[in-house]
């Protein structure tokens, strides 16, 4: 395949052009706006598919495409200042592109059903196109600067989409909250970019990799902290903000105020995925900066805490929102424990089943006209297709074997267990992860039971709800997505542990082979690489890359432990098998508990409410995080500070400094006015005018206006000139 402007740019540009066109169409011909958006993203999907197929056909870890073009060139003489934009596509990008475009296409299609007839529903597609194009741009970008630009573009889009129903005050507040909370992370991210710039002198990803491989970060520090740690931490803060990790997770539940398809997009394919994607990209930096423990802690806490909050939610979408936070916590945990491959896999699988879950939830809410689970129940008969799709996804997210969630989550947990064996510091995150794995099936099954099973609890709405028919834009997207919740697509084997091999490229676990952590041993390929200019002509070197032997790349082992040794490999294998068995047992218990509580009625939920009342109170208040931020930080702290500053500004600065200066000016003005009137105006200006007038009286007689006089003068002048020159 040729990697040129015409084959790569459409992936990003088709949705973007759809956005631009829609901006024009929305006033004149709003009818076609949704279809332009759908056409844009579906076209983009096919281009992404072409890229993916190319990478699958090459099937090599070391294969990547990096092409640049000059964006800004302010070089002058020897001072080189160039900003290059470009594309960087490796295996991860290719998979990500396919996932984003595919999921976004289905969400677009679903939206044409869900949003039809809604207020401003055409405008929704405008935002959707821009959102998708921003995410695709971010994925394609080769440098942190353009990643940051697209990152901010997504921030804006999420702001617009969350506040889509801006008539509602909560929606407006939620959008503001999302925007402001992610802003905290963005500031750190920018700081991280600057730190990297300071060391590497460039912000494109291969350069950073090469610099890390050369050891450019060694021995450098800022504020007494190692610079790699500082930069890595700052960039990880961006992830915390965008992917709703522990301290900054408060915005994501509120993001439910937007329309459900946009929630699907934010929670699955784009917004939160971007944060984890960034951390995965900057993985070597975290590695060098030794931030793994912190990352693992944050991931574990998030995974566990969000899962507990999800247990008692009544809103259908809120359960899904907290489950999103929890699953994102797993991804971050995966990054922390060195399960790079598994974390990315979980990103992809989670995107697919979470998109499907949200779309299903949208289908339920739109059909049932209610979003509170206590009012639902027994919807299985009314919404059979949605029920099937949602069960598939539930099984996947719960980590039931043969489904994708099991494959990916288990690998994370397996690595966590391995780290637990080798390094004591990872004890708490690993345990939190396993506890979260216990809670996940429970709250998801609870949601399913409350929604679809049992008796209905609101007869009016139930009767009002039409029986679902198979329509191409309502439930066909759900069913398509639910097919991909099977683990076989991702693992190459049914369980992901190499027990049952199923056909995959070369009979191997393709995901594991292709996505390889960029650690020291394979970063060396970036050293001394040649930059390719992104052009209309493919100037790629056609020679095939050497095949590398696949070895498992584990992350951070404890000191004195050789991770490449035979012993380590065996340990890892054992840990994975143990982890798998352990999590299957945990999931089984969890499901049993859910059945017992909601179907068979062995245990009443109120039993737990009574026993753990303090805990439940904390959960109900979302661990007091909102209270902490809004009431303590903002109302007690920032507002006070603002009042003080305002008083200082108006009372002190304005009154004394500015007004006083005005009085001084007044005096100066009077003096200069006198000078201007008397000296300048009367003497200089009028005097000059009179002088000019007198002079003009003499000279203007020459300008008689008779052309023939001029002509005579011209002839005379020529004669005189000739005489002067000649005689």
């Amino acid at each position, binding site marked *: 395949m040729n990697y040129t402007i015409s084959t790569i740019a459409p992936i990003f540009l088709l949705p973007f052009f759809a956005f631009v066109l829609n901006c024009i169409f929305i006033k004149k011909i709003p009818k076609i706006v949704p279809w332009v958006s759908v056409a844009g993203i579906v076209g983009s999907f096919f281009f992404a598919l072409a890229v993916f197929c190319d990478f699958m056909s090459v099937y090599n870890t070391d294969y990547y495409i990096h092409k640049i073009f000059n964006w800004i060139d302010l070089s002058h003489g020897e001072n080189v200042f160039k900003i290059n934009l470009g594309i960087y596509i490796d295996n991860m990008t290719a998979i990500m592109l396919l996932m984003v475009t595919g999921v976004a296409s289905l969400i677009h299609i679903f939206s044409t059903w869900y949003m039809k007839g809604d207020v401003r529903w055409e405008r929704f597609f405008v935002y959707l196109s821009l959102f998708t194009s921003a995410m695709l741009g971010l994925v394609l970008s080769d440098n942190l600067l353009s990643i940051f630009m697209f990152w901010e573009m997504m921030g804006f889009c999420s702001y617009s989409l969350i506040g889509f129903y801006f008539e509602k005050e909560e929606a407006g507040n939620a959008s503001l909250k999302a925007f402001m909370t992610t802003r905290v992370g963005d500031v750190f991210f920018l700081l991280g970019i600057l730190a990297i710039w300071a060391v590497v002198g460039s912000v494109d990803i291969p350069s950073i990799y090469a610099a890390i491989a050369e050891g450019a970060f060694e021995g450098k520090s800022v504020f007494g902290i190692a610079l790699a740690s500082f930069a890595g931490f700052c960039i990880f803060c961006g992830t915390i903000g965008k992917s709703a990790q522990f301290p900054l997770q408060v915005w994501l539940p509120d993001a439910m105020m937007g329309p459900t398809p946009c929630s699907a997009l934010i929670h699955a394919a784009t917004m939160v995925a971007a944060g984890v994607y960034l951390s995965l990209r900057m993985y070597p930096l975290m590695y060098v900066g030794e931030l793994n423990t912190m990352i693992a802690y944050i991931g574990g806490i998030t995974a566990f805490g969000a899962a507990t909050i999800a247990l008692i939610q009544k809103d259908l979408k809120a359960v899904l929102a907290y489950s999103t936070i929890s699953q994102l916590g797993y991804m971050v945990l995966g990054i922390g424990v060195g399960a790079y491959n598994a974390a990315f896999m979980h990103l992809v699988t989670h995107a697919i089943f979470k998109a499907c879950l949200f779309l299903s939830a949208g289908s339920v809410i739109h059909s049932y006209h209610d979003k509170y689970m206590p009012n639902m129940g027994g919807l299985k008969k009314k919404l059979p297709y949605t029920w099937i799709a949602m069960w598939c996804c539930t099984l996947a997210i719960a980590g039931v074997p043969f489904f994708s969630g099991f494959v990916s989550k288990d690998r994370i947990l397996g690595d966590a267990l391995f780290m637990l064996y080798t390094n004591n510091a990872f004890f708490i995150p690993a345990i939190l992860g396993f506890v979260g794995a216990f809670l996940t099936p429970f709250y998801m099954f609870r949601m399913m039971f409350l929604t679809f099973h049992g008796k209905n609890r609101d007869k009016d709405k139930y009767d009002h709800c039409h029986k679902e028919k198979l329509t191409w834009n309502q439930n066909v997207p759900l069913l398509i997505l639910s097919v991909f919740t099977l683990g076989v697509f991702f693992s190459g084997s049914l369980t992901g542990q190499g027990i049952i091999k199923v056909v995959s490229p070369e009979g191997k676990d393709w995901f594991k082979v292709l996505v390889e952590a960029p650690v020291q041993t394979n970063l060396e390929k970036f050293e001394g690489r040649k930059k390719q200019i992104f052009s209309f002509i493919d100037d790629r070197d056609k020679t095939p890359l050497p095949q590398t032997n696949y070895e498992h790349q584990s992350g951070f082992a404890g000191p004195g432990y050789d991770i490449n040794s035979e012993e380590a490999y065996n340990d890892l294998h054992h840990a994975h098998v143990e982890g798998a068995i352990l999590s299957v047992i945990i999931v089984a218990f969890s499901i049993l508990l859910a059945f017992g509580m909601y179907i068979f009625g062995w245990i009443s939920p109120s039993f737990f409410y009574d026993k753990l009342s303090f805990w439940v109170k904390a959960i109900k208040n979302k661990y007091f995080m909102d209270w902490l931020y809004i009431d303590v930080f903002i109302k007690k702290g920032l507002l006070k500070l603002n009042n003080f500053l305002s008083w200082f500004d108006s009372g002190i600065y304005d009154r004394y400094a500015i007004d006083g200066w005005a009085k001084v000016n007044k005096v100066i003005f009077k003096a200069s006015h006198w000078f201007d009137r008397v000296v300048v105006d009367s003497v200089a200006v009028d005097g000059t005018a009179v002088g000019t007038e007198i002079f003009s009286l003499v000279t203007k007689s020459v300008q008689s206006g*008779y052309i*023939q*006089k001029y002509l*005579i003068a011209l*002839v005379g002048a*020529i*004669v005189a000139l*000739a*005489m002067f*020159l*000649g005689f």
Partner: protein
Amino acid sequence: MFANILFSVSSLLVISSCILMMWTKNLMHSCVYLLGVLIGVAGLYLTLGADFVAATQIMVYVGGVVILMLFAVMLTGGKDYQSQTQKILNLFPSMGNKYTFMWGVGVAFVFGCTLIYFFRNLFSVIKVIESDDSYTPTIERLGELLVTDHLVAFEISSVLLLGALVGAAIIARPRKERPAFIDDIVDDHHHDEEHH
């Protein structure tokens, strides 16, 4: 041989035509004498081997400029005006006065002498190339020169012509009369004032 005959005829035509043009009172005749001058100059170009320039001269001047002049004379009446101003310009009589010819000859003499004197050294400076009378076609070389060395001037002259075309059309177009409804409005206004 042919060239000499052509030169004699052409220069005779040029000189006689331009003297007649200066002489005659009738502007229409003046224009026709100008035609003679132009054709004569075209003949002189031919003796110099400038075939394309000669053809262009006839094409542009005879087919365009002279007819325009004739039009202009006809549309404006072609009167021969007398001088209106006092003082110095009266010394330069307009056509028809008996002094005209004297003045013409006088100015011609002074100016011609000056020019000759001014350029007298030029003839020694210029090395006159004694080329033979053989005739070489110029048109291909002219074409090449126009689109290579003189391309900018060529393009600018095209812009100039376009500007002249549009400008002439706009300038000569009669101004629109004031629309009738404006008068009505003004009248209404007056009526209102009278009522008050």
